[in-house]
């Protein structure tokens, strides 16, 4: 055994106490700060629940067709959505979808500027990269505990946990995409007297778009992977059904809800990927890299 050289109890107590102090003194402020997140999630959720079921199916099928210009994906989407409806998973699917969309939108808002900063300064990249590593490897329960302590169980900690887990790939891929932009094109742009802002929005971001879209695709997938854990702290949705299935040893409930998550994942994965590919062919990157 490793010898006990120092007494670590004060350190542990200090960590616990300081969190408690934060909860006691700053709990309300934190909760107020998180209100926009909750508002976003609730708005998306009630909007999607307000829409008639057939319209949602129509929109998703339409998106699938717009993305691929073929019939295969739209048919898969149609069948998958009808499966969700038939299995009485519609409302839970919508709630899960709302959580995923809210988390993805928030992740985009946070990650794009961060990725841009990282691409522009090596120092920022050196500081942010280990934080991203930590966000991706730290077991989510570790940061769920303090988050739940601060916000109480409910949608806010679920959303925050999902964002923490889902944002890193988007930050990384935004940074990567911007740095991979052809330096010859950037130089040409510079030679025409562009400002840094004109280069960022006119050249770098459009050319990095396929990579950024791949990041968004990753983010939606990781958000969906988080829904079961998020449901443990009150997110509801398909994850909650899975959780209940486990609790009641009701295999069918867990299985079908689990399949529901897979179905959502397939739909959003294929649609975002197809859009990314379409963009790539349009700017001729796919041929260049073959």
């Amino acid at each position, binding site marked *: 055994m490793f010898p006990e050289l120092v007494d670590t109890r004060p350190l542990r107590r200090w960590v616990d106490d300081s969190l408690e102090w934060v909860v006691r003194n700053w709990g309300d402020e934190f909760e107020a700060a998180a209100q926009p997140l909750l508002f976003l999630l609730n708005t998306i959720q009630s909007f999607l629940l307000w829409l008639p079921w057939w319209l949602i199916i129509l929109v998703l099928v339409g998106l699938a067709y717009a993305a691929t210009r073929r019939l295969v994906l739209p048919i898969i989407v149609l069948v998958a959505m009808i499966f969700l409806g038939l299995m009485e998973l519609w409302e839970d699917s919508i709630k899960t979808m709302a959580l995923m969309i809210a988390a993805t939108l928030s992740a985009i808002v946070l990650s794009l500027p961060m990725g841009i900063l990282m691409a522009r300064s090596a120092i920022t990249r050196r500081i942010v990269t280990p934080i991203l590593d930590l966000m991706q490897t730290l077991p989510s329960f570790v940061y769920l505990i303090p988050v739940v302590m601060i916000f109480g169980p409910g949608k806010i900690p679920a959303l925050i946990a999902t964002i923490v887990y889902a944002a890193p790939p988007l930050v990384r891929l935004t940074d990567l995409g911007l740095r991979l932009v052809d330096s*010859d094109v950037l130089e040409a742009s510079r*030679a*025409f*007297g*562009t400002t840094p802002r004109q280069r960022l929005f006119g050249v770098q971001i459009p050319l990095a778009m396929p990579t950024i879209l791949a990041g968004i695709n990753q983010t939606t997938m990781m958000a969906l992977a988080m829904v079961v854990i998020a449901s443990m702290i009150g997110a509801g949705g398909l994850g909650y059904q899975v959780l209940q299935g486990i609790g009641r040893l009701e295999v069918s409930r867990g299985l079908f809800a689990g399949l529901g998550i897979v179905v959502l994942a397939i739909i959003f994965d294929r649609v975002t990927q197809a859009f990314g590919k379409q963009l790539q062919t349009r700017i*001729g990157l796919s041929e260049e890299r073959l």
Partner: protein
Amino acid sequence: MSTLPAIDIRNVTKIFGDDPDAALALLKQGTSKDDVQAETGQVIGVDNVSLSVERGQIYVVMGLSGSGKSTLIRHVNRLIDPTAGEIYVNGVDVLSMNLEELRHFRRTQIAMVFQKFGLLPHRSVIENVAYGLEVRGEEKSKRLEIAAEWIETVGLSGYEHSQPHQLSGGQQQRVGLARALAMDTEILLMDEAFSALDPLIRSGMQDELMSLQRKLNKTILFITHDFDEALKIGDRVAVLKDGVLIQEGTPEDIVLKPKNAHIEEFVADVNKARAIHVKSIMSRDDNMEKCEIAVTEAARCEDVLPLFAEYDWVGVTDDAGKQTGYVTAKAVIKALAKHQGNIETTSI
């Protein structure tokens, strides 16, 4: 027209590395370049180069890869800042400009064509050609109108709404050229603009550039690694090696009087008939007879060679059509034969 050169590069040195000043100090003390690079670990890209380009000239900087020619051209619009030296464009000190002035200078005074085209892959051909105008802040209808005109001039009508990746290399470079010309700047920088193209297409683009130049009369600084290209299009040629300017002069100067072995090597392989103007070898005779056939003073030996199949001598006329001299087949053969005496001859 003022006598001020359009581009004036004075004693420009560029040292790449983390401590260029130390290397520069050593270089100024007269330490050799290799020693400086070995001692400081800095890389010397351009070493004390001076050259000046007159208005309306095509000035070619020729050198092999690694000679610093692409680094040098980027100093003119300050895509690269020099370690030491001065750069004047139309008498204005480029190095003293602040960022805003520099951007204005790039938008209005100088346009550039790149070896790898540098087109924006997400924009159509016409949007690419209009890009510089857009950056300059021209109105949309106006810039599209100008862009359409230049697309026609470079022979790409019908491709306005194609994406760059749908075009061949030669067509893409036409877009690059149109984009630069659309800026209507007096000065054009061309960095190995035709080097990435197939030989036939390259030769066609060279001809087109020269015919455009006769109309537009721009100041063009042209970078190439192709000696033939330099001789063909250059009014003046500078040869760069390892960052040092070795020789500078008219194409004939360089072909007829190569300064060192390095340049002689280029000259040995070159088509001299293309480099030598008949004007520089013609004879003058006040009471010469009226010629049956004549070429202009701009003609080169290769232009008169076929005429000797029919005629013994050919007249040379100035721009006004007045006969100023004549060349004989003998004179041309003499000029072309010079400096090629590596075959033993015997007289019987």
